[in-house]
């Protein structure tokens, strides 16, 4: 194989496929990515057997067709260090010569025939969504997912599409985040996508982009396609709890607060929570919200901020970290809290299409 291509384009493509290359694996061949050339372009492919990434690159001058397996880390690092606008790759057997202004390098690859094949996705349903919107949905949910294998929603986020709405839902059993979007397609599906796949996808998506991300949901896999890049992931076969059931339908009290003020106040009070007892007490005043934290060995915090309060008031305890994590990805200026008492879930409205449910702490 012999090709000549734009160095920056190749480097970006290598970065995308490298995102699925495992850091540690018992199958060393997976440290590589595959380059395969056609008449006027190349395809890069890498996988960790749970996820696979593929990028197509055109405007490549192919003087000799073929394929080669290259070590992902070294290739990526090398391309970053080169300075010429173009680069030539020429492979014979499993050696690949890289030629660019900075010198002459030989990378030792492995046999391309030994590399796993791309999976064929069966029974796909297609959903199309704006890239920027998808990125927001991932940001608004992924943080709330359980990260330990032991809990029920194992490292995954629910993707629930029906009647022109796509919802993403994540929970760790103590809080639950829902983010949704309306889409033109009417496909129906309810699958759990691994957190790792979503994080990898998020890295490839750009904030606010109006481009289209097309999602194809199969029985066992899900495929995300934007432009020339494609990410395939295995789906998780976990049962996701009935999230609609936990969203409270009514509340005794509604509080509206300026997000930045709440975040600052909560951050300050949570300093005085001990590391084993993360509890901040919310007391709803007439037009105020008072937050107190008590760490018997370090001190007390007592902060009061303005709020617009409707309803009976009262008090409720939260783990402040749960709220701070959500505020970090919230873009609204004013957020709303609907709450009842210690035993009922509280609902935070953190965006036009972003709802966050937190279970309070009782018995304080």
């Amino acid at each position, binding site marked *: 194989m012999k090709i000549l291509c734009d160095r920056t384009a190749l480097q970006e493509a290598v970065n995308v496929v490298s995102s699925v290359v495992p850091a540690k694996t018992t199958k060393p061949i997976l440290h590589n990515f595959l380059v395969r050339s056609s008449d006027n372009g190349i395809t890069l492919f890498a996988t960790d057997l749970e996820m696979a990434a593929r990028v197509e690159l055109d405007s490549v001058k192919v003087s000799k067709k073929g394929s080669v397996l290259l070590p992902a880390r070294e290739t990526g690092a090398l391309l970053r260090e080169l300075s010429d606008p173009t680069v030539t790759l020429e492979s014979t057997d499993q050696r690949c010569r890289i030629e660019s202004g900075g010198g002459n390098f030989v990378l030792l690859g492995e046999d391309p025939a030994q590399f796993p094949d791309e999976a064929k996705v069966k029974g796909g349903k297609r959903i199309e969504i704006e890239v920027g919107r998808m990125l927001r949905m991932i940001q608004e949910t992924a943080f709330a997912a359980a990260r*330990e294998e*032991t*809990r*029920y929603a194992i490292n995954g986020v629910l993707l629930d599409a029906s009647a022109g709405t796509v919802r993403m839902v994540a*929970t760790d*059993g*103590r*809080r*639950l985040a829902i983010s949704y979007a309306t889409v033109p397609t009417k496909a129906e599906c309810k699958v759990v996508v691994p957190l790792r796949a979503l994080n990898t996808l998020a890295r490839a998506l750009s904030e606010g982009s109006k481009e289209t991300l097309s999602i194809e949901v199969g029985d066992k896999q899900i495929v995300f396609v934007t432009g020339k890049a494609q990410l395939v992931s295995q789906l998780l076969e976990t049962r996701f*709890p*009935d999230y609609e*059931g*936990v969203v409270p339908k009514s509340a005794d009290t509604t509080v509206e607060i300026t997000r930045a003020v709440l975040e600052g106040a909560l951050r300050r009070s949570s300093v005085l929570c*001990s*590391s*084993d*007892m*993360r*509890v901040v007490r919310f007391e709803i005043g007439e037009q105020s919200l008072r937050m107190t934290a*008590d760490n*018997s*060995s370090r001190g007390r915090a007592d902060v009061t901020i303005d709020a617009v309060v409707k309803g009976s008031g009262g008090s409720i*305890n939260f*783990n402040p970290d749960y709220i701070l994590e959500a505020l970090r990805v919230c873009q609204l200026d004013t957020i709303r809290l609907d709450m009842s008492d*210690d*035993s009922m*879930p509280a609902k935070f409205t953190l965006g036009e299409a972003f709802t966050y*449910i937190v*279970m*309070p*702490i*009782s*018995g*304080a």
Partner: protein
Amino acid sequence: MIRKLPPEVVNQIAAGEVVERPSSVVKELVENALDAGARRIRVELRAGGAEAIVVIDDGDGFLPEDLPLAFASHATSKLQGVADLDHIGSLGFRGEALASIGAVARCRILSRRHDAQEGWEVRCEGGVETSPQPCGAPAGTRMEVRDLFFNVPARRRFLKSASAERARIQELIAELSLARLDVDFTLVGDDREILRLPRDESLAQRFARCFGEELAKGLLPVSRAFDGMKVEGLVAEPDLARRDGKLELMFVNGRLARESSSLHAVRQAFREYLMGGRFPIYALQVALPPDQVDVNIHPRKAEVRFVEARMVAGRLHETVRAALLGRLGLPMAAGGVVIAPDMPRARSGFPQLPPSLFGDAVLPPPPPSAAGAEPYVVREPVAAPAPAFARGAAASTPPVVSRLNPFQRVTGRYLQVMDLYLLLEGQDGLMVVDQHALHERVMYEQLRQQHAARAVQSQRLLVPTVVEVTPAELAWFEAAQEALQQEGLHVAPFGPGAIAVHAVPTVLARLDARKLVRSLVVGDETAGMAPVREALADRFHSMACRSAVMSGDRLNDAEIQQLLVDAARLEHPHNCPHGRPTVLTFTGPELERYFRRRC
């Protein structure tokens, strides 16, 4: 072909349950002597009991009319009908021991009632009994058991060496004797006196005589009366703990017996004082109304069951805990068993110490210049040699038992070496302290104290976690529901074979709820709240470990002094929470011996 076994064989098989080895014979015979009201019991052995076991008592003696039935099975004078089974006051009640022993040995009974002129003799060999013959005999009973298992060669081959059997019998008599301080015991092996336990000594004296004089100094008396239950006895200082559970002795209404939830409860009370793999030492007499105890569940009567097992276990825990606390004059938290029961809630009754070990006036001079350059910096912060703690204590609190906390007896001279060890001058000698281990213990106690002082809080779960349980576990959870809720764990039955977890203790909120619940029911479902508390203790351990000063941290004077002040307040300063020792003391005499100043 199915054949009915001849009666000798049936008796031999039955005997196997009761008579396992010489010590089981001794146990039955000594119990019989005690049941007969003996005040003096002498046990003689030949070849560890394999050749002969003779038990001589000064009890009531056999009624002559009972003698023909002495070796008959299920013949007893202690029980008449089924109704008697639930208030057994005697040690024997099955009437099986003599029948079993008689089936597998050559036996002879010589017995005379105190009011009779004449004694009687009866023999039994391999289950065949002679008719009683009148003869002269001292008042009381002499039981001879010779050639044990002479007709069961398989059993005889399995006997251990004479010395091993003798050692076991010695242990057994020691154990049995603790329940009866009013009885004089003598054990003689091959004409040599092995054990002599005069009567009317204190429990501690007898305990030390039986199990080693070095234990005598570390025995704490225990005595507590509850409604319908009494606990008395001794617990040994945790630092005396053994590598086996041999000296975990519990007597239920005078009977040496185990009961699993009580065993667990007492171990639990000792838990954080003991290094892994160590077992506490104690001898506890538990007195309960006889109808609260089922003694008829084990062939050798070595185990009993309580009707109110959980309550008894809880009270034992409380009692032992209180005794361990009593060492420092610390009161126990009210309300019985609570999380971290070893610390009084929020400062109550805690000795008030001065804020600094040395007081502001005698703050140490600044360390010598370029201290960091010297490998070891000698610091002599106090001029006065008076023990610092004693001064503080004398001011406001009654004196405490200082044997227990060596840090209350330091003179104030110290030296940090290798950025890991502190050398202290204590009144007992030279103390070498592992700074990390000691600080870990300090942190651990502080965390527990804080925890005890604040209200239990629960993180509610969004969706209840459902855990499948067996019907027995379900019943346990239903019974424990309220108690668990007090610890912050909210569970409720969920259909026939499951429970739902609605909230978990906030301190443990990061744990998986299902695992937490499973840990409650694995193994011993009578363990009560212990696993929740163990999970808490583990959490405190790891937090303490993370926040403690490390080896390699050079400490400044203020830090060392603070550590010593904190250490002086510790209830149990000898081990870090993982059980590693914190301090090693070389006493004056030890050092003298080492330097050959004396031999």
